[in-house]
């Protein structure tokens, strides 16, 4: 007994009374050991070696829980950036030339290295820098991250059919604009490297150590050739210097809010960087009255404690049906009270500190309290450094719909509980909540569950589960989903795309205080009104409309009735008929993933705006696919050019197209792209001169395409079909990009046209054998 007391253990009787868990004997922290081995002073990782520019100011990397400085990195500046871009550009051709299978193998080797010996180091560094508890970073996060490396690698090895002829972009910069977990980074990096691009990662000093370890691992044993993966640490403004480098063909921002993206892009000469990246958001959990409340409460509490790896920002909004709201709240309070808050490096901890750089959501909670909501907070246990970087798990119930805690995602372990009357109301509220990336529906009644999941606008919907993420099934990025094909396409250049020619920078054409455009606004509003009805029609009905239009236009004889300005002979008719057949076949897929199945269904974008300017002819063949797949199109045509489109419209309306589904607006074409973008359609085609659109307004549009000039040039052949076949099963309007000519526009690549439901109706492991 005396010996035990001397060891510092509590007396046995006391342990039996409190039944508290003992400390887990901590060995050497492998993360700290790695930092020590570098003398706590890291550099940039460029061209396969460490780059430590002499005499540079250092920035501190701080531990998330206590604020203690664990390492220093040099403050990157434009010369470092230039060196990194040069290294990446030099390595780009060789890396692309290796070929898909070889690249896949290299990436698999990187994943294996990460898995085997350095797992502990990576997990410890992630916990140290980011504040996510060790049990998550060593477990689910790292597993997901490895799969995110291996699945695209596998895809590149197999040579996916939809990607024939796609070439890599070149040098791609990934800017971590905020707190970001390894999985979120690898979700972009995996497909990026697998497609043959070289990567340049710019991160903030707080998040740098794990990324530098990743760089070092890629250099060890020449897993990746030098220059393929470069990591730079620097102050937040460093990414502005990217504009000076035309070799950087694409920029992906991770963790940036939309306003920041706009600020970065406004007024910048658009030299070609393709923007893209997931935006922060929350998970909406809908608990209906036929749900297993205990399991739902357990899962929700676990999600509040450590948010899912791919979207670690926003917390959780729980919509509970009236009949079960009180019982669910009781269970949630019990579960939140049992969460263990502590040092993230302790394997027992479930709730870590707030990610570095995020302010605690004190204001939000205070406001909720003042508005009269009940706020349940668990008192914090004694924590290192007084715990000012931690925030206690909180449950807010009884908040009004307009309350601050619902308007924006608040970081930290914050749950907001709202009672709803029925599944309909739940769907309405879930659609109205801003910035939600995923949803979960808990209900044992399968019809209700599937129907509710069907009507939700979120790209990723879980059924009776939370946080089952698998890259082959579909991961959420922003409010949208990408599956493997699309993730790879995002970093590739389709065979029909011409390389960009960069001449002069574009300048914004329409300033912020231009008067609005009432006709355009009305047309877009009409299209929005028609969109749900048109989109929900069965494929066969839409096919009938298209076939009817084809028959009406050509009377079934195959000869055009009019001169067909700008319309090659019969190709419009062929397009109408082909897409009618295509949409009748239907689509969607079921993928099997560990833990369940994913039902992947594709939905129409919504309202697509077409900005058409002289002197380019509008390729009318592009309208049938958009309409066939259930979108509504608003065409802003130049004066005198609307004739053929109006004829097509009349034929379609006569065949049964709802009135708002295709709207044509004659009028001024200057800046039509910007004006359309201002109306916030779900997709935007720019078919005109390049001065038509400025980037700042285009940032708010999920998908932007430009139509290449040579589309209609190849007479005789059937260019659209080849392109559509090349787009694989892509059902969205053909992803043509690049308007040739001055400047080059590359679209932001987030598309809400792929929705997956992840269901877990099968248990993850088989039943244990009878004993």
């Amino acid at each position: 007994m005396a010996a035990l007391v001397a060891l510092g253990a509590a007396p046995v009787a006391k342990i039996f009374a409190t039944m508290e868990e003992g400390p887990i004997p901590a060995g050497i922290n492998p993360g700290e050991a790695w930092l020590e081995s570098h003398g706590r002073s890291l550099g940039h990782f460029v061209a396969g070696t460490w780059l430590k520019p002499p005499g540079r100011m250092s920035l501190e990397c701080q531990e998330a829980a206590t604020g203690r400085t664990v390492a220093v990195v040099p403050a990157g500046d434009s010369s470092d950036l230039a060196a990194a871009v040069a290294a990446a550009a030099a390595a780009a051709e060789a890396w692309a030339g290796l070929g898909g299978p070889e690249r896949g193998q290299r990436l698999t080797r990187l994943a294996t290295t990460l898995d085997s010996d350095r797992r502990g180091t990576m997990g410890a560094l992630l916990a140290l820098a980011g504040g996510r508890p060790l049990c998550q970073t060593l477990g689910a996060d790292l597993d997901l991250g490895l799969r995110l490396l291996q699945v695209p690698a596998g895809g590149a090895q197999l040579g996916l059919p939809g990607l024939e002829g796609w070439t890599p972009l070149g040098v791609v910069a990934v800017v971590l604009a905020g707190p970001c977990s390894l999985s979120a980074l690898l979700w972009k990096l995996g497909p990026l490297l697998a497609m043959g691009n070289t990567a340049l990662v710019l991160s903030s000093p707080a998040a740098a150590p794990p990324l530098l370890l990743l760089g070092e691992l890629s250099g060890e044993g020449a897993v990746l050739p030098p220059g393929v993966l470069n990591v730079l640490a620097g102050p937040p403004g460093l990414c502005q210097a990217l504009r000076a480098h035309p070799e950087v063909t694409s920029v992906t921002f991770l963790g940036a809010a939309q306003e920041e993206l706009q600020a970065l892009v406004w007024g910048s000469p658009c030299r070609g960087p393709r923007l893209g990246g997931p935006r922060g958001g929350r998970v909406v959990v809908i608990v209906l009255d036929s749900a297993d409340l205990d399991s739902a409460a357990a899962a929700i509490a676990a999600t509040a404690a450590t948010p899912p790896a791919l979207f670690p920002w926003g917390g959780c909004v729980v919509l509970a049906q009236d009949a079960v709201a009180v019982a669910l709240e009781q269970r949630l309070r019990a579960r939140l009270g049992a969460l263990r808050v502590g040092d993230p490096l302790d394997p027992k901890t479930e709730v870590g500190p707030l990610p570095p750089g995020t302010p605690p959501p004190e204001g939000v909670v205070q406001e909720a309290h003042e508005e009269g909501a009940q706020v349940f907070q668990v008192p914090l246990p004694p924590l290192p450094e007084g715990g000012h970087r931690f925030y206690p798990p909180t449950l807010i119930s009884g908040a009004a719909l307009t309350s601050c805690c619902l308007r924006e995602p608040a970081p930290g372990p914050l749950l907001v509980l709202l009672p709803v009357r029925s599944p309909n109301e739940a769907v309405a509220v879930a659609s109205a909540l801003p910035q939600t990336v995923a949803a979960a529906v808990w209900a044992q009644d399968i019809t209700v569950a599937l129907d509710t999941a069907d009507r939700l606008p979120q790209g990723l919907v879980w059924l009776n589960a939370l946080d089952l993420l698998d890259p082959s099934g579909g991961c959420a990025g922003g409010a949208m989903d990408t599956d493997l094909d699309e993730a790879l396409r995002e970093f590739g250049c389709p065979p029909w795309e011409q390389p960009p020619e960069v001449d002069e920078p574009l300048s914004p054409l329409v300033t912020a205080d231009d008067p609005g455009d009432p006709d355009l606004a009305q047309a877009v509003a009409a299209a929005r009104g028609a969109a749900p009805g048109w989109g929900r029609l069965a494929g066969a009905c839409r096919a009938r409309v298209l076939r009817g239009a084809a028959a009406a236009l050509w009377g079934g004889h195959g000869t055009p009735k009019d001169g067909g300005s700008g319309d090659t002979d019969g190709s419009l008719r062929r397009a109408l008929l082909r897409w009618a057949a295509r949409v009748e076949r239907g689509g969607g897929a079921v993928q099997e993933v560990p833990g369940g199945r994913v039902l992947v269904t594709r939905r129409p974008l919504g309202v697509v705006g077409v900005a058409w300017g002289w002197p380019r002819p509008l390729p009318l063949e592009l309208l049938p696919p958009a309409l066939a797949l259930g979108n509504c199109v608003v065409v802003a045509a130049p004066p005198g050019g609307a004739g053929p489109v109006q004829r097509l419209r009349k034929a379609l309306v006569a065949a049964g197209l709802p009135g708002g589904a295709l709207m044509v607006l004659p009028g001024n074409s200057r800046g039509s792209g910007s004006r359309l973008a201002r109306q916030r359609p779900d997709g935007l085609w720019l078919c005109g001169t390049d001065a038509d659109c400025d980037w700042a307004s285009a940032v708010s549009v999920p998908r932007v395409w430009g139509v290449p000039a040579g589309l209609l040039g190849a007479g005789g052949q059937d260019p659209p079909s080849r392109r559509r076949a090349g787009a694989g099963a892509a059902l969205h309007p053909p992803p043509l990009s690049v308007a040739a000519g001055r400047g080059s526009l590359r679209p932001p690549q987030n598309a809400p046209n792929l929705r997956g439901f992840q269901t877990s109706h099968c248990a993850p492991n088989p039943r244990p054998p009878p004993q």
Partner: protein
Amino acid sequence: MAGRNPGTELELGWISKVYVNRPAVVRHAEQIKKWKTVKVAAGFPSGQTPLEAKLTEIRLAVEYGAREIDIVISRSLVLTGQWEGLYEEIRLCRAACGEAHMKTILATGELGSLANVYKASMIAMMAGSDFIKTSTGKEVENATFPVGIVMMRAIKEYYWQTGYKVGFKPAGGIRTAKEAITWLMLVKEELGVEWLTPELFRLGASSLLGDIEQQVFYHVTGSYALQHELAMA
């Protein structure tokens, strides 16, 4: 609810609203496994003896001085959904036990689904059991973590509704000290520290004792005991 509150009516409206999501519970159990912690009478082991025989056994056992009685419910009543019948049976056994401590064995391996386990647990508690026990230890499938989780959630719900604390005893299939510690952690997570006392939580195991002795031996001496150095279990 009737058993402990004589005078109130049996109310079964909640039966149709019991939902248990098996995959989620199994996932939860898998997660927990990864963490670094009776005088028998009345129908033993199959519960298929007629009710009169069960009641006679109980009365005789109480007469002979038994202070703890374990009864096994008729699984056919659960599988056919005769909840009033099940309640009546357990209530009669409770009456026959008198002041003796009664454990109700649910034979969870035979009940078919986790939802049935939940419902049977609630009925057993409503009828006045002091402990609910997963199995006799002689069935094919005994105490597994998913079943334990569901029964503990039922106990918690009963406590919230009535204020009575009913104990839990998993029996059968627990062979190693590590499993036993995992059960302790599960009880702590689902029910709370108040349940971690012998009055409210017991483990039914026979070979477990030998394994615990081995582990204690190892922690004290640094090596495992040879076969002859420990008592025969």
